[in-house]
């Protein structure tokens, strides 16, 4: 809502010295969010005066018609002599009152006026258009002021309101009343503690009736319906400058006097109005819900199929208005309309909101109705409008008034005395509570320990005791609420899972990975690029009804597309050695989920069954850890060569991530998109190898590398962190033996196809519990051991916790380990 301060001052006795900025501050502290304070016309200076055109001489011989005028500007030019001015506009005649910028004036945009020679004459000033002065948008030529506007020489800038302050207020959904000068004025008066003059407080006829015939089908759709008419309206009557100026400052375009009046009254009182050309109406009006199959062409030339939930205004021809949202085209006011019928109604908020959304049609009218307009102002608003049509358009107001009042009185709200204090933590005297509630328009009756509060008709938002508390507190000042730190009971700190998540993030970062937070939006193309099979679980996705980007309507089922694209972006920016990780949710529709999550009641807490039904509808949303890496893992430099990131880094990173939670992963070769079929590890929880893998790691498939434009041999891992977290167990203390260690190195030759993990497992088992640790320290392939064979060299560390092992014991353990490996993997000791 744009609020010109000059207009506001009509209703509020603001102190003369109050600045717009100060006013804005006060309104902000009352809860009206003033976003900007605009000083319009501040850059316009110098003499801008009213002038009367005395003579017009048509200059010829130029490419376009040009006039040389003499203009009476009174004493404003210091001489009293007529001012000679060259003018290119043609929409005026001798004797017209115009606006003249005299030499020395500066117009918007720093345009300085001076006397200068042009078209062979001296032009000492400019006859101005509204656009040139920044008054309003107008391309019809210069301003011709109405006769009697002012005497020549008068300060036109002052009279036209060239300089003003405009507050732009972002009105929150609860404060519909602030979408009007009336509503803002009431707040401003409260802010300054000064008198408020209600513009809706105008004389209206005591009795109504005899107006245009109308009925309302259902009080639930329209609680009040008022029609007033005028006849003999002059469709050519111009909108007076003051009204055009105010509409312009409020951001409303001037259309015609009749339309401008309805808009003006809406801005003034907050009541949307509609005006029909009476001659186009066919018989009695009925306010009702639409019927299946009905259509209406609205003012924006769109034919709309109506919904049985839309409120309509109809006559015998059918629908003529989409009530409260937009008028119909066939009954629109035209430039020949002389008999006008004005409608002021109170439509049901929720219907208007749904209609506006359904037809994707938001209007000044619908914005106000859906936030709630004053339920009692309709008669005043219609009366104000027909009064203006009569005054400005020469019309005659009809005596008959249609007034259908189906409203029911509001129930008072009962609130305990002192409730406000218990909400705020400040003790307000009950007198203060009552005074503040009355100030915002409530009727308050005290009954002992309770107050019975009836909010005013313009505050439909006040329904609960806490709403009333807010009114008191904001008027008393939020700044007066003290700051008292809360005293929470002893908290338990972070959960184990929350601590693990932080720890794994730190671990990955310490291992050289940078954390990224990618959007979860993906498209089929991303999944295709991962080379996922048609039946891959990751292709079963949650879809958005209104994605930002039509190419990415799905929610991710894997972190990899985002990670890979971010990796490509970094490579593109010159960072070829890059390692990234992300920890975040992926989304899998729950198999067998109901089609729709139920909408539960809100007047009580949900039952366990209801909650379970909601959860059953939600997708599974496990937290994954994913990482990608490319380029050099260890950099080359003056110290020597570097080392490229490989499948092995990816797998080891997964293991290290899991080890943060004390969880051991078992690695098995696997073929799983998007990984290279020969360089992909499936990762299992140790001891639960028969369950599904918790993740995969390795080098990406060359086709994936190509599809995403990745550096060759890019490696990646992704694990289901939720399962790791769930598998985390508190560690038990190991016995730390201080007896000497005995080491045994063994080199075993096996078939190349034998996984090292199996050899190691066999060695471990064969060695038994005196094996402290085992480490593969070399892998050799070559002619010495034969084609298709590889040699694996292990260092075994043996130690007892109660004695020093003898040479015989260590040899026996080694032999047992080798025997187990031989039996299970066909390993032979390398000679």
């Amino acid at each position, binding site marked *: 809502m744009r609020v010109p301060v000059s207009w506001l001052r009509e209703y509020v006795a603001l102190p003369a010295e109050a600045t717009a900025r100060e006013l804005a501050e006060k309104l902000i*502290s009352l*809860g009206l*969010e003033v976003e900007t304070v605009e000083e319009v016309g501040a850059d316009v200076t110098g003499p801008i005066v009213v002038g009367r055109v005395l003579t017009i001489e048509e200059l010829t011989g130029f490419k376009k018609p040009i006039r040389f005028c003499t203009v009476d500007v009174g004493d404003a030019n210091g001489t009293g002599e007529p001012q000679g001015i060259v003018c290119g506009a043609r929409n005026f005649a001798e004797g017209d009152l115009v606006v003249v910028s005299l030499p020395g004036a500066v117009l918007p945009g720093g345009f300085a006026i001076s006397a200068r020679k042009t078209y062979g004459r001296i032009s000492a000033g400019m006859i101005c258009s509204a656009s040139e002065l920044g008054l309003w948008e107008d391309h019809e030529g210069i301003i011709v002021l109405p006769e009697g506007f002012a005497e020549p020489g008068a300060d036109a800038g002052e009279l036209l309101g060239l300089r003003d302050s405009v507050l732009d207020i972002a009105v929150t*959904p609860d*404060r519909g009343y602030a979408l009007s000068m009336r509503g803002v004025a009431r707040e401003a008066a409260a802010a300054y503690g000064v008198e408020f003059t209600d513009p809706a407080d105008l004389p209206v006829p005591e009795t109504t009736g005899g107006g245009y015939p109308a009925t309302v089908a259902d009080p639930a759709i329209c609680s009040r319906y008022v029609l007033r008419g005028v006849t003999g309206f002059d469709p050519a009557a111009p909108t007076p400058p003051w009204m055009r100026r105010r509409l312009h400052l409020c951001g409303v375009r001037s259309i015609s006097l009749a339309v401008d009046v309805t808009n003006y009254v809406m801005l003034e009182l907050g009541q949307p109005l509609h005006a029909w050309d009476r001659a186009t109406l066919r018989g009695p009006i009925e306010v009702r819900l639409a019927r299946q199959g009905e259509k209406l062409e609205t003012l924006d030339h769109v034919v709309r199929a109506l919904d049985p939930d839309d409120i309509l205004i109809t006559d015998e021809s059918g629908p003529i208005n989409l009530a409260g949202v937009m008028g119909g085209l066939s009954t629109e006011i035209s430039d020949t309309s002389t008999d006008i019928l004005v409608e002021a109604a109170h439509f049901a*908020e929720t219907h208007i*909101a*749904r209609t506006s*959304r359904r037809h994707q049609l938001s209007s000044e009218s619908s*914005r106000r109705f859906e936030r709630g307009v004053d339920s009692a102002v309709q008669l005043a608003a219609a009366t104000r409008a027909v009064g203006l049509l009569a005054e400005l358009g020469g019309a005659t107001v009809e005596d008959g008034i249609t007034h259908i009042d189906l409203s029911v009185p509001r129930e008072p709200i009962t609130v305990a005395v002192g409730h406000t204090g218990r*909400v*705020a*933590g*400040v003790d307000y005297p009950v007198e203060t509570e009552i005074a503040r509630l009355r100030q915002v328009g409530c009727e308050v009756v005290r009954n002992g320990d309770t107050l019975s509060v009836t909010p005013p008709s313009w505050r439909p938002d006040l329904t609960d005791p*806490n709403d009333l*508390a*807010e009114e008191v*507190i904001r008027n008393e000042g*939020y700044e007066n*609420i003290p*700051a*008292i*730190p*809360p005293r*929470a*009971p002893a*908290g338990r700190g*972070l*959960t184990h899972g929350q601590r693990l998540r*932080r720890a794994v993030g*730190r671990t990955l*970062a*310490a291992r*050289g990975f*940078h954390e*990224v*937070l990618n959007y979860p939006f993906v498209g089929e193309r991303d999944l295709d690029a991962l080379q996922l099979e048609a039946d891959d679980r990751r292709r079963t996705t949650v879809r*958005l*009804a*209104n*994605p930002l980007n039509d190419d990415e*309507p799905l*929610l991710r089922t894997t972190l990899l597309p985002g990670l890979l694209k971010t990796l490509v972006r970094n490579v593109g920016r010159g*960072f070829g*050695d890059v390692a990234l990780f992300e920890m975040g*949710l992926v989304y899998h529709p729950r198999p067998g989920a109901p089609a*729709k*999550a139920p909408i*539960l009641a*809100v007047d*009580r*807490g949900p039952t366990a069954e209801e909650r379970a039904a*909601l959860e059953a*509808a*939600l*997708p599974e*949303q496990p937290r994954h850890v994913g990482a990608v890496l490319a380029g050099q893992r*260890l*950099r080359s*430099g003056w110290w020597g060569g570097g080392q490229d990131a490989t499948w092995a880094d990816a797998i080891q990173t997964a293991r290290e991530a899991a080890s943060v939670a004390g969880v051991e992963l078992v690695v098995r070769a696997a073929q799983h998109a998007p990984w290279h079929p020969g360089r992909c590890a499936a990762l299992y929880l140790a001891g639960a190898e028969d369950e599904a893998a918790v993740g995969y790691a390795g080098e990406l498939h060359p086709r994936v590398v190509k599809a995403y434009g990745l550096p060759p041999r890019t490696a990646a891992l992704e694990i289901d962190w939720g399962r790791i977290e769930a598998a985390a167990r508190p560690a038990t203390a190991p016995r730390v033996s201080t007896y000497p260690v005995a080491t045994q190195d063994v080199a075993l030759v096996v078939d190349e196809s034998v996984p090292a993990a199996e050899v190691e497992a066999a060695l471990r088992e064969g060695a038994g519990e005196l094996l402290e640790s085992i480490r593969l320290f070399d892998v050799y392939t070559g002619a010495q051991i034969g084609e298709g064979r590889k040699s694996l060299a292990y260092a075994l560390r043996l130690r007892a916790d109660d004695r020093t092992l003898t040479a015989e014991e260590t040899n026996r353990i080694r032999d047992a380990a080798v025997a187990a490996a031989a039996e299970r993997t066909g390993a032979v000791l390398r000679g």
Partner: protein
Amino acid sequence: MSAPNNSYDPVEVNALHPDEVARMRQEALDAIARASSLEELKEVRIAHAGDRSPLALANREIGALPPAARADAGRRVGGARREISEALKARQAQLEDERDARVLVEEAVDVTLPYDRIPHGSRHPLTTIGERMADIFVGMGFEIAEGPEVEAEWYNFDALNFLPDHPARTMQDTFFVAGPNGGESGMVLRTHTSPVQVRAMLDRELPVYVVVPGRTFRTDELDATHSPVFHQLEGLVVDEGITLAHLRGAIQVFVEQMFGEGLRTRMRPSYFPFTEPSAEVDMECFVCRGASVGNPDAPCRTCSSEGWIEIGGCGVVNPRVLVAAGVDTERYSGWAFGLGIERTLMFARGVKDMHDMVEGDVRFTAAFGMEM
């Protein structure tokens, strides 16, 4: 080795003559002083302090002296040997120092050589600042609650008193989850962390003191100050005797710990369906502390010379929300707040553009290290 005896041999005894002992001592000390390397000193040690050195031999003869003379000679020889031993030790230390100095100079390297062989990583600043923000409240006794990102509309809207057709519901620019065959799913990408308020009240024993850091979603195009995916820190307290004053107190603690001691906060009335009364929270600009207001000579870019920075919304939990969460409104009341994590990062660390926070450029992330 000769055993002590009582015989008297004038020739042997000569070696113990005071002049002779003094001579041997002087000879040894001269040789020690002359030794110019550790190797030479080793030879000097053998010659003058070894088992076959003159003084060692002389020492053996003491027993041959008449008993009355033994003590005297013993003192003399012993003193000389001690002196020589100390001189050797001193010279040894001196020569070792000289050798070490020489060797260490030879081993000197250019310590300014970079050794960035193992690249370091980093955590995203939104993660670390989110943890920091949450931890301030954890320090006050709050716990961290969590909830799903794809959320039931009931939790995201209805239970929070967003009425089905109220403009507040459409103002949130919601991502809706598509239902089967294009129908409604009853699910959204949560538009705020507030649904976790309801979950926390349902899941936990009262009183509840929780914060909820998390990802939230709205259909805003990415630009310098907006992102369709962003992060909030929600706070919720439900207890007996809870007031706006406690809310203000909690926020005051947060602001001072996050941005600096003594910074003031203010609340402005506002509107959220799930709180009533509601407020926007501003903090005093931590850069200019208000000095830029009305002072065109010293403008402040952080607060646009407003003196205040908006940090979030808050309010008293609307009793309708408590009812929907099954909380006894006669006994309990509560408050809640929501702070923007991106916004906090922008202010706290001078991030200028939302793009930096979402693009995943390692230069940006690396600048923030591991902790905030």
